């Protein structure tokens, strides 16, 4: 499920002192979903990507980025 999609979720979490479980509970997904998205193993749905961006209060492009190989 990994792909050319990188993300800054770990950084954004760290800036706010949040755990994976905190973020998971905040956007109503499981901790496993957050952890696999963070390491790029799972490409999230558009809905989950938008929920994450909205929660952090940033545009979705600031959370997810396509690498050059895409």
């Amino acid at each position, binding site marked *: 499920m990994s792909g050319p999609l990188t993300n800054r979720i770990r950084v954004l979490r760290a800036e706010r002192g949040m755990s994976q479980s905190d973020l998971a*509970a905040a956007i109503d997904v499981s901790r496993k*979903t957050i952890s696999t998205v963070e390491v790029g193993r799972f490409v999230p749905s558009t*809905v989950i990507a938008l929920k994450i961006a909205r929660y952090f209060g940033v545009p979705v492009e600031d959370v997810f980025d396509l690498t050059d190989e895409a």
Partner: protein
Amino acid sequence: MSYFRPGTRAEVTDRLAELTGMAVGLGALIYGASVVQSFSAPAVAMTLDTIRMVCGILVLAVYLPLTIWFKTRFSGVILNPWKSDSFMGAALKRAGLSAFAASVMFMVLLSTLDRLVLSRMTAESVIDLVLAVALLVFAVSFLLLGRDGGEGEG
């Protein structure tokens, strides 16, 4: 938050997906034992019968009550792992796709082998065999796809 007392709907949905995978694995054992049973000696057949019974009891006495308990954990909402956007929901759907593809390929293989296999088996055994292959591929795929490749809590 323990395994049997997940705190959020998303965690409960993941548990339901895991339970589904386990129950399908037990189903594969039941049908697989049934196929082997039709070719085995009476003593072995009795053991296989016991295995089938134990698996059946596990599905009825453990899987079903746990599934109902998890599904009704949050009143007013029926949780369905197949409709979930989560990592485990995706693993479930991909495992289903793998099982479908494997069972079709297996049936094509059986038909191209002409009468080599089919003439030696009853229709009941052939159906059990195809079901065993499909359920086994589903359970193994789900186990592999659903492994947590992420990093722990951090």
